[in-house]
């Protein structure tokens, strides 16, 4: 089963400790286990653009789509046997500790 990981900041998480952020080790392990499919860090949310068409007019605003304190810092796509394995994999991602990670199953379009 494929899961999308929303890797988000969290003001209530542990303070970030760069030496304890082993994202490189995590990615290497998940590639080896054939779980890691895609993923990347994102540039800060204040560089985001939100795009809307209203009454056929293009409206482009700066910043993310929602004014949340938990902004998205990165994403991942993992392929797991089931939700339990996805939780195990996600729990060892450094941002589970320094932020929060939402798992969402894919819902492929037909055809």
């Amino acid at each position, binding site marked *: 089963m494929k899961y999308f990981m929303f890797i988000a900041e969290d003001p209530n998480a542990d303070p970030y400790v760069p030496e304890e952020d082993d994202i490189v080790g995590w990615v290497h392990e998940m590639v080896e286990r054939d779980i890691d499919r895609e993923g990347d860090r994102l540039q800060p949310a204040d560089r985001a653009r939100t*795009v809307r068409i209203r009454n056929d007019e293009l409206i482009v605003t700066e910043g993310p789509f929602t004014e949340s304190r938990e902004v998205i810092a990165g994403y991942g796509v993992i392929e797991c046997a089931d939700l339990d394995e996805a939780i195990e994999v996600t729990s060892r991602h450094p941002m589970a500790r320094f932020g929060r990670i939402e798992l969402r199953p894919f819902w492929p379009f037909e055809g």
Partner: protein
Amino acid sequence: MEYILFVATDPEAEPYDETKDNVGEWVADLQSRGIYRHGDRLRPPEDATLVRTRGGELLVTDGPFTESKEWIAGYDVIECVDMDEAVEIASRHPMARFGRIEVRAAWPIEELAS
């Protein structure tokens, strides 16, 4: 550079009209131009699982990472020269009309860049 489009709902957008949803054509056009990387629709936030570790303990709860009226319904990753091109492409996605699209530039981690 890769840009990630977070395709979100918007309660203030015009009502969804299936006959104007040409997302298949949108993807096909980008594929033919060699700039489409990957993307998909996602299950709704009711099916989300939130994973955190706090003080060394694993916390697993149901629901999305943020309590917002708007939620992300899908994503696309495209290869563009700059933010202006990414915004132009996002503006032609049908969900720019029926929702809203957040455009974010990737920021690859150096040690992982292949």
